[in-house]
């Protein structure tokens, strides 16, 4: 049976290690070609990006700051995936959760830290959970496919959140529609305050640690709890789950709720972390959708997702900084590369799968 476990290992390495790396390399290669065609030396470009991100603690913390929200939306995708569900609605869940957590933050202003901070996170989770549970409920009760409903719920959330902010919370003098600022009790401490080698006052904040803790908790939930057992059973084989007396309807709704809850906390990084401290919708657009790519690149595994989120943070943070040095390369090069990573990943995974199949056939 040694060879069997060797085959499993090969499978793991290929699908979860080699495939994402190849996708990333190819994306950089194509990005490099585009940059060359714009008359810029790609090596200079990328090495500048590298030094901007990794050259100093400030760079690293900026990168972490950009990476953190992706982790939450990617977890939303992956958690649902474990239960056999496709939650494409992280974008909408993120907005609803974000508004909910901001509201708690500027409403219960008398509460001290960390009580208000924690309440804000709970509110973000619940807001996202509500928005995720609705498609779950529609699937269970009406058989509506969650891919369709979660996408539709995105549009509703975007419009709804915009409406609420403009008509209820916004002060016309502000110019741009945002909510009032959250109270100090809700502030997420900067990593500079917690970990000595981070620069004081960096915008990277405790939400990054929350993300890591959440990754651990998710693993425990799925692998060690009764609920996790039932969620996995439902995802892997609903018929057998039904046979086992598992209430698959309730598990489906619950999974979608937890998944949405993850997305609901994504904007805490911006709203509670060092910065403007209000909910500004236009700042978060696309983080939910990019979460899909991050989740896939991280191969639906919490550790992988943290790495993938950091890569996305790397690209985004690098893009912002590198503009100063290479003004003729548009910032959107990064979005192109993110898209290429996703497309190439899907192709490479398919090739790896075929290769493994051939290998099995040849014995």
């Amino acid at each position, binding site marked *: *049976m*040694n*060879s*069997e476990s*060797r*085959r499993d290992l090969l499978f793991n390495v290929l699908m979860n290690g080699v495939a994402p790396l190849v996708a990333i390399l190819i994306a950089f290669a194509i990005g490099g070609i585009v940059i060359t065609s714009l008359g810029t030396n790609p090596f200079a470009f990328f090495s500048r990006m590298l030094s901007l991100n990794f050259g100093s603690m400030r760079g690293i913390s900026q990168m972490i700051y950009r990476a953190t929200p992706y982790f939450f939306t990617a977890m939303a995708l992956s958690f649902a995936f474990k239960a056999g569900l496709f939650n494409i609605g992280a974008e909408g869940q993120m907005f609803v959760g974000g508004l909910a957590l901001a509201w708690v933050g500027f409403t219960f202003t008398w509460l001290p830290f960390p009580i208000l901070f924690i309440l804000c996170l709970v509110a973000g989770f619940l807001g996202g959970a509500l928005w995720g549970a609705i498609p779950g409920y529609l699937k269970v009760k009406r058989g509506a496919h969650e891919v369709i409903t979660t996408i539709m719920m995105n549009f509703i959330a975007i419009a709804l959140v915009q409406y609420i902010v403009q008509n209820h919370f916004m002060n016309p003098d502000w110019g741009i529609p945002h909510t009032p600022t959250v109270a100090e009790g809700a502030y997420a401490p900067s990593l500079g305050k917690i970990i000595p080698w981070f620069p004081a006052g960096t915008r990277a904040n405790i939400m990054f640690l929350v993300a890591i803790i959440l990754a651990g908790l998710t693993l425990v939930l799925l692998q*060690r*709890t*009764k*609920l*996790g*057992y*039932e969620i*996995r*059973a439902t995802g*892997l*084989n609903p*018929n*057998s*789950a*039904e*046979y*086992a*007396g598992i209430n698959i309807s309730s598990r489906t709704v619950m999974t979608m709720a937890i998944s949405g809850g993850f997305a609901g906390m994504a904007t805490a990084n911006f709203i509670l972390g060092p910065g403007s401290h209000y909910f500004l919708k236009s700042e978060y657009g696309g983080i939910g959708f990019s979460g899909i790519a991050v989740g896939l690149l991280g191969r639906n595994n919490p550790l992988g997702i943290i790495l993938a989120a950091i890569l996305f943070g790397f690209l985004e943070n690098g893009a912002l900084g590198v503009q100063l040095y290479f003004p003729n390369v548009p910032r959107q090069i990064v979005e192109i590369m993110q898209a290429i990573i996703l497309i190439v990943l899907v192709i490479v995974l398919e090739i790896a799968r075929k290769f493994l199949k051939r290998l*099995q*056939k*040849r*014995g």
Partner: protein
Amino acid sequence: MARDNQIDTDPLIRMEGINKRFPGVLANDSVDFSVQEGEIHALVGENGAGKTTLMKVLYGIYSKDEGQIYFDDKPLEIKDPKAANELGIGMVHQHFMLVPPLSVADNITLGREIAKYGVLDREEAKERILELSSDIGFEIDPEARVEDLSVGVRQRIEILKVLFREAEVLILDEPTAVLTPQEVESLYEILNNLQEQGKTIIFITHKLNEVMDLADRVTVMREGKDVGTKEVQETSKNELANMMVGREVLLRVEKEEAEKGEELIRAENLTLKNDEGANIVDDISFSIREGEVFGIAGVQGNGQTELIEALTGINEFSSGTVEVQNSDLTNADGQVIREEGIGHIPEDRLDRGMITDFTVTENFVLGYHTFERYSSRIFMKLRDMDEHAKKAVEEFDIKTPSTKTLAESLSGGNQQKLIVARELSQQPKLLIAAQPTRGIDVGAIEFVHERLMKERARGKGLLLVSSELDEIISLSDRIAVIYEGEFIGMFDANETSKEELGVYMTGSERQDKEEVRRKALDKVSPRE
């Protein structure tokens, strides 16, 4: 066991010293195999014996590691299925390879389209298909869509596909595994007709009855080796079973007299309607006592699945009552039913009975995972689960590298053993078992039967649903025949025969309704 291959003169196909290795297994271990032109040759052996592998080598799907294939005494290499097709060899796989949304004709011609001036000639194709099918004795509508057709018909399409490619040698991999008894009958006819036309047929099976009914010669494989080839007329089921398993096998079950105790379950007037309002289960009543096996015989699709799934909490009855030792379990929750001591071996092991992507341990608590033994309010008791699994793996002799192995890598027989072991290790007082030995090999069948009879001897009750009449008769005490959702006959297992049950199963005869009900409820004298 010594090899006793007779010298085969002038075989059409001869495979010599075939070796085929997969990681960790020698699937074919210097196998010799030969086929005469025009014969029906059965290839039998337990699951994992290497039958499919050998045929895939012959069909060019797998490349052999060593050995030689001769066709018409000429040594040659068959490097892919196309090369096999050119030699006139065709194969019908265990899992059908049809495109469901396409028509019958399109499926058959796929890859071999008939074209005139570069345009598909559908009319010509249809004619060829009608001709081919009437030649071997059945009718088919070439324009029907495959997705609307039953499994039996799909298999015929696969056969036509092979004939359309002008095959002279047909390999069928476990063709009867998916068929109902009637469909098996018509497959027999088709194969006999093919033989009359001079075709050569190799069919893989592990049902010895089929070998005796159909084949001219039979080759037995065990653990990758060929153990011998026999003329069917000169061998017996017993001999073949022993060759397959490598030891003495009991084909008949030892059924001791068991002391019948108190009534365990009493079900009355059970009815289950489908969405259209038709009665899928129609006014069924029965009771089972301790130490008693109540068999339900019937052709698949007559309501037995629905009856069992509603009894075990997966589905709900529209009306009727189920009482288990005075507690009302009508439409109770699956978990409650298990807690009351009712186990369930479902008929579909992969799509009901287990989760193939779960480990052996995780599968061992499926359905029992909420029991205090295996979980607290929030957490699973992983160590206790694993301990339980290890003990049961040992006790039930389940072949698995470890309890952490995914269930998907177990063989079918061991998967079934896992399910049986899971249910029995919870010591149910009543076990509901549907097709407990379907698709598993003689050795495993013997094992399951023995365990079930042991439970009966211990005073447990058993509700057994099976389409294998031998199994029903040899295990049961009382037998009900179900037809279109109704019990239409009740029999004492000692006083009935396969033939008698067969007549009732087709609905051609039925007993008096009140009489059936009275016997099923085990009442000596009529009510009132």
